[in-house]
C-alpha cells in the first residue's frame, strides 16, 4: 500500500489526520506515521485502511442512463470538541441527522423523520434540510429550541409537511473545562439517550412533545446547565427502534442503551445496527459526544523519553489542582497502565501506546490505549492483582474496555479535592 496514495486521497477528501484516524480507529500520530512510512499498520488497521481506500478511490459504478439524485448535504460541522456520527438507510429517505456549527463554541444537533418513505418523501426532506441550513445561516448566536420549533412549525404548517424531530443545542461554558450547556426538545420522536458518567447514568435527554407542526404552548424543552464530559447522545428514528426492538420502540431504546453504554470507544453504528431483522421503514441513528482532550500523543513502549514527556505533561497539568503527592500517584497509575500495555499487549516486542488526557470540571481523566493482543476477560483484568491493583490504589476509578481499533483502553479517573476535602484537619476527617 502506497503511503503517498493514502495522503493524496485523504487530502482530496478534505480529511485531517485526526479525522482519518477516527474512521480507522487509530490515533493521529499513527496516521502520521503510516503516511510517513515509519509505522507499519497492524493487520486489522491495514484491512480497514484497504476498505477505506477502495471505497474512496473507486468511483461508484453507474449504469448507462441512470440518473443520480443529488440531495443537498449539510456542511459538516467543524467543531473539534464534538464527535458526530450518523448512519441511515435507504440513501434517499425522509430520515436524516445533521450537526450544524453555530459560531465557534456551539452546535445544533438534529435528527429528523419527515413523514413518508424513500424517494417519495425526498422533496419534503430537501425542503426541511434547506430550511434548517438557512435558519442556522441567519443565526446571530446560540439558538433556542423553542424558537426553532416554533419557526419551523409555522413553515411546515404552510407547506403541509409533518415532521418528527429531535433538536439539541450544546454550547461550551467559558472558563469551565470540557463542560457544555445543553438544551433539547423532542417532537414526536422517542427521547434520545443521554449517557453520562461517572457515575454512569442515562439522564432525561428531552421533553417529548407532539410532532411538528405544533402550537407554541405545546413546546417543552429540557435544559441542563453545566453538563460535564464525558457524555454521549444517541438518537434514532422510530423505524430503526422498532426493528432492533423486534417491533417495540421501548425495547429498541433498551437495545441502544446496552450497545452504546458510555465506554471510551463506541462501536461503529453500521456494525451494531445491522441485524438479521429486515428493515421496513426509513432509519437513522446518530451519536454526538464530547471529543476534546488537553493532550493526545503516543509512544512506542521502548521509547522512554517520549513516555517521560507524556508523564511530565500529566504531572504539570494535574499538580496545581491535586497537589504534589496526588499528582505523583496519578502519574504512577498512568505509568502502570503504560507498562501493562507493554507487558500484555505487546509481549513479543515494542508496540505503540497512546495517551489521551484532560482536566474535567471535577476530575482528571487519562485514557491509555494500545492496538495489541486485547483482553480475554475484562472483569478478570479489572479486578486482578498486580498492575490494576496499583492503578486502583492510585485512582478513584479504573476501567478497562476493548479498543475500537483492536487492543485495550484503560481509563483512569482521579477526583479533584473538593472544598470540604481542603478544609479537613491534618490526618483526615477524624484526625
Amino acid at each position: 500500500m502506497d503511503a503517498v496514495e493514502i495522503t493524496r486521497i485523504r487530502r482530496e477528501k478534505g480529511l485531517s489526520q485526526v479525522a482519518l484516524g477516527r474512521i480507522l480507529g487509530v490515533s493521529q500520530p499513527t496516521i502520521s506515521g503510516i503516511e510517513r512510512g515509519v509505522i507499519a499498520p497492524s493487520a486489522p488497521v491495514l484491512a480497514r485502511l484497504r476498505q477505506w481506500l477502495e471505497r474512496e478511490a473507486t468511483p461508484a459504478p453507474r449504469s448507462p442512463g441512470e440518473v443520480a439524485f443529488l440531495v443537498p448535504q449539510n456542511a459538516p460541522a467543524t467543531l473539534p470538541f464534538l464527535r458526530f456520527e450518523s448512519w441511515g438507510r435507504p440513501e434517499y429517505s425522509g430520515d436524516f441527522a445533521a450537526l450544524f456549527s453555530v459560531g465557534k463554541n456551539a452546535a445544533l444537533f438534529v435528527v429528523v423523520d419527515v413523514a413518508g418513505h424513500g424517494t417519495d418523501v425526498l422533496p419534503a426532506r430537501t425542503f426541511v434540510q434547506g430550511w434548517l441550513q438557512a435558519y442556522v445561516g441567519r443565526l446571530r448566536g446560540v439558538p433556542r429550541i423553542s424558537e426553532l420549533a416554533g419557526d419551523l412549525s409555522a413553515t411546515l404548517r404552510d407547506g403541509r409537511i409533518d415532521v418528527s424531530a429531535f433538536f439539541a443545542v450544546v454550547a461550551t461554558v467559558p472558563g469551565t473545562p470540557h463542560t457544555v450547556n445543553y438544551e433539547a426538545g423532542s417532537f414526536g420522536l422517542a427521547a434520545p439517550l443521554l449517557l453520562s458518567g461517572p457515575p454512569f447514568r442515562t439522564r432525561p435527554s428531552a421533553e417529548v412533545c407532539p410532532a411538528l407542526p405544533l402550537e407554541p404552548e405545546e413546546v417543552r424543552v429540557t435544559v441542563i446547565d453545566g453538563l460535564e464530559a464525558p457524555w454521549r447522545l444517541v438518537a434514532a428514528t422510530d423505524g430503526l427502534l422498532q426493528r432492533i426492538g423486534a417491533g417495540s420502540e421501548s425495547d429498541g431504546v433498551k437495545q441502544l442503551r446496552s450497545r452504546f453504554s458510555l465506554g471510551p470507544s463506541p462501536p461503529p453504528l453500521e456494525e451494531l445496527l445491522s441485524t438479521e431483522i429486515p428493515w421496513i421503514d426509513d432509519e437513522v441513528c446518530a451519536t454526538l459526544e464530547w471529543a476534546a482532550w488537553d493532550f493526545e500523543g503516543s509512544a512506542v513502549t521502548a521509547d522512554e523519553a517520549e513516555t517521560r514527556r507524556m508523564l511530565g505533561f500529566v504531572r504539570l497539568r494535574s499538580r496545581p489542582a491535586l497537589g504534589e503527592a496526588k499528582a505523583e500517584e496519578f502519574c504512577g497509575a498512568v505509568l502502570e497502565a503504560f507498562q501493562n500495555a507493554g507487558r500484555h499487549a505487546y509481549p513479543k516486542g515494542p508496540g505503540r501506546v497512546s495517551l489521551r488526557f484532560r482536566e474535567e470540571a471535577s476530575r482528571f481523566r487519562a485514557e491509555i490505549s494500545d492496538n495489541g493482543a486485547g483482553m480475554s476477560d475484562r472483569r478478570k483484568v479489572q479486578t486482578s492483582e498486580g498492575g490494576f491493583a496499583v492503578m486502583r490504589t492510585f485512582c478513584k476509578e479504573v476501567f478497562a474496555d476493548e479498543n475500537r481499533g483492536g487492543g485495550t483502553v484503560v481509563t483512569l479517573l482521579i477526583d479533584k479535592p473538593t472544598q470540604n476535602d481542603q478544609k479537613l484537619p491534618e490526618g483526615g476527617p477524624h484526625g
Partner: protein
Amino acid sequence: MDDPYRIERLGNECAVVHFAPGELTAIRSQAHLDELLGLVDSHGRIAIDFTRTTLVPSDWLRAIERMRVRAGAAGKHLAIAGKTAAILKTADALKLRESLRWCDTIEEALRP
C-alpha cells in the same frame, strides 16, 4: 536508551543497584530479571537504591521481591533504600510492603 539501573559492586560481599532518578519507565525484561537474580547469587548483601527514584512500576517491585525471596532462602540480605510515598503505596497495593525491608539510606540498607 539508558539502562534503568547501574550495578555498583563493593567488593565480593556487597552490591548496590542504583536506579535512575525520576520515574522508572523501562519495561522490565527477562534479561534484567536474570541479571538481578544473578547478583543475589554472587553477593551476600544487596541494596536497591530508590533514593532518587520517584515511581516504580509493579513489575519492577515484583522482580525485587523475587530477589528478596532468593536472598532469604540463601541466608543473604536485601533491602531497599528510599521511601518515596508513591513507591510505598505501590508496594502496599501489591502486598509487598511488609515483606520488603525499607531504609532511608544505602548504608542502612546494606547493614545486616
